[in-house]
């Protein structure tokens, strides 16, 4: 009798589990729980893996902006829901996260973590038609509204970043010699060809282009090559930090007088400060203001009030991405349009002289897929801060 009771109990438990499993498989409960009014931001965010240093900041940035909006009553009364998933910076896991989040929520806008993911998910976005996406990638290839109609870049693309640096150089030292040092990766090679042509157009010369393996440590041979070219400026791209400090230290030891420059992913304050005393004067392009900038920026003040400790430039990028997502949604709703990928993108492209609350120092206009604005900042190791070295440069 006892045996039979246990058996019945076990059977009903198993049936219950099977039913729950089937329900999870077919109709995820969160879809049922979600209010149809919510505006949903999905996110494939690299909270672990090689890109976690940025992912954690991006996540916090999006989260904080959503909090600000929800505390202010949402977008036209509709609450905003943010659903992130960790990806470990792997494309297949990012796609799984996308599928999971979009299966469980009616997603309107999405933050992707890499160029690989942006390219992989693009056909899905086109087919789906209801999502606008931005992400951590600044790949020049994505700056093509025809090929990527439902995506945009939260800043200038890599080629535009180079253009900003080259414009600054051409103004500071006309006819200067500029060396390009880049990693042998999609990321590294991205802007090189076009930027060489751009340099020539600006009257600058590119005496040497040095490609190193991604993650290389010993660069002494490359430094000798660089020294022989005697550039006035050296632009590094396709790295986060290593091997840039090695180049600078060895270059200085060998008497090089070049000024050293980098692009967005090297330019976070905490990254540059790791270069130590040799990194003093290191310059680079930054599309956003730094957390500690003292110029008038009401949104930065809000951020500082919410988070008294330093927030990375990845945080600002995530924060701005959320701002642009939700501004597009607001404009769509104001015009009485449905929140589809095409409508959201069209609304984004109506942004003319839009004030980001000081996150970017000048009003922005997004006519295509990127925000071609930036500024050159310089490392002040004594103050342990990045300080402005140019005015805002619009392309």
């Amino acid at each position, binding site marked *: 009798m006892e045996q039979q009771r246990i058996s019945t109990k076990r059977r009903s438990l198993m049936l219950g589990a099977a039913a729950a499993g089937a329900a999870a498989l077919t109709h995820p409960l969160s879809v049922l729980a979600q209010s149809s009014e919510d505006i949903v931001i999905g996110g494939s965010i690299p909270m672990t893996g090689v890109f976690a240093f940025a992912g954690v900041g991006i996540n916090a940035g999006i989260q904080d902006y959503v909090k600000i909006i929800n505390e202010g009553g949402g977008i036209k009364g509709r609450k905003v829901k943010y*659903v992130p998933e960790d990806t470990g910076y792997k*494309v297949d896991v990012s796609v*799984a996260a996308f599928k*999971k989040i979009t*299966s469980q929520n009616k997603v309107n806008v999405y933050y992707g973590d890499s160029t*690989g993911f942006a390219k992989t998910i693009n056909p899905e976005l086109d087919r789906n038609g209801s999502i606008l996406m931005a992400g951590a990638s600044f790949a020049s290839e994505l700056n093509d509204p025809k090929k990527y109609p439902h995506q945009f870049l939260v800043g200038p693309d890599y080629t535009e970043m180079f253009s900003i640096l080259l414009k600054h150089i051409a103004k500071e030292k006309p006819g200067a010699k500029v060396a390009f040092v880049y990693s042998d990766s*999609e990321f590294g090679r991205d802007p090189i060809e076009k930027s060489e042509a751009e340099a020539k157009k600006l009257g600058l010369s590119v005496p040497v282009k040095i490609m190193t393996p991604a993650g290389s440590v010993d660069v002494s041979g490359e430094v000798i090559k660089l020294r022989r070219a005697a550039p006035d400026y050296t632009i590094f791209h396709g790295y986060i930090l290593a091997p840039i400090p090695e180049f600078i230290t060895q270059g200085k030891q060998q008497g090089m007088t070049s000024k050293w420059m980098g692009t967005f992913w090297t330019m976070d304050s905490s990254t540059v400060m790791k270069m130590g005393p040799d990194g003093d004067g290191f310059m680079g392009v930054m599309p956003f203001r730094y957390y500690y900038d003292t110029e008038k920026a009401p949104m930065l003040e809000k951020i500082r009030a919410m988070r008294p400790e330093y927030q990375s430039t990845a945080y600002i990028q995530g924060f701005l991405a959320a701002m642009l997502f939700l501004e597009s949604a607001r404009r769509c709703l104001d015009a009485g349009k449905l929140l589809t990928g095409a409508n959201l993108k069209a609304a984004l492209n109506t942004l003319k002289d839009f004030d980001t609350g000081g996150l970017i120092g000048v009003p922005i206009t997004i006519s295509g897929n990127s925000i071609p604005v930036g500024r050159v900042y310089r490392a002040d190791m004594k103050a342990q801060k990045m300080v402005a070295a140019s005015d805002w440069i619009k392309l």
Partner: protein
Amino acid sequence: MRIGTLKETYIADAALFDSRTQKAWLVVAAALLVLFPFMASDYWLYLACLVSIHVASATGLNILTGYTGLVSLGQAAFMGLGAYTVAILQAKLGTPFLLNLLAGGFVAMLGGIVVGVPSLRVKGLYLAIATIAASFIAHFLFANLKFTGGTGGLSVPPASLFGLQLDTSFRLYWLIVPVTVLMLLGAANLFRTRIGRAFIAIRDRDISAEVLGIPLLRYKLLSFGLSSFYAGVAGGLWAYFFRVVTPESFPLQMSIFFLAAIIVGGMGSILGGILGAVFMTMVPELLKLAVDLLPGGSDLTVFLSPVRLVIFGALIISFLVFEPLGLAEMWRRVRRFFHLWPMRN
């Protein structure tokens, strides 16, 4: 060896599926595979396709490493060869997808045979290092050849069948899963033939195998070729599934993933390859689902993401420590238990 399975003929002894219960369960599994796409959400369908591709590739590696005893860390490179072949054929010539997949398999097979040449001289870790070279050479070629699209790679148009584009997980499921099942059946049958037995003989003692009349070079290269063919077809399926192929799509880490899959699953067992690939793909996802059940929202996600990886690592180590023969051996034990259940005592 299980008791209660009396065989009266050699044919019965060598049968792939040896009991009525097993056959009944296989029918149930086949029915579930057919019904699954109609019940599952896009997320689960995506995972099913991904697991399937991983199973196909892991099975290929199992032929080489598990059955022939040749350790390889070039599986991802061979997948890349298959993926690029499919991408180029589909994008530039628009040839039928089955032909493209076969071509992908054969190109990878050729690559595998070339890489396998040192296997006559070196084995074990030395061979593993030699096969790593395949990864670097393949990466260099993919990134620097013009027709492979350089570092930006290639976009792959969707496969199409009678005008129907296979561009969703639901549609691709009907391509990926049947191809994988066919490959599994092929691999399982391989070890009922002279070739398969020769592979096992080489693994157990290559000198003895040679004394028995097995030409080592031919069979080792054949094993490399077959394994790479599996990787090539899996890579081709990968290309149709993700629709973008870049040099960074097939890193060395991916080869390590497959090696880990067959070790965790059980080397030298078809079931081991399947279970290992399922384990390595699904456990991180299931851990994520478990984290989702906890209250705390995205703050908790940030905090628990690294913890999840630690748990995954600990699970792998636990399996290696407590069940060195892999998940397949655990499965066999469960099967033995239920074989005579409830008459066991």
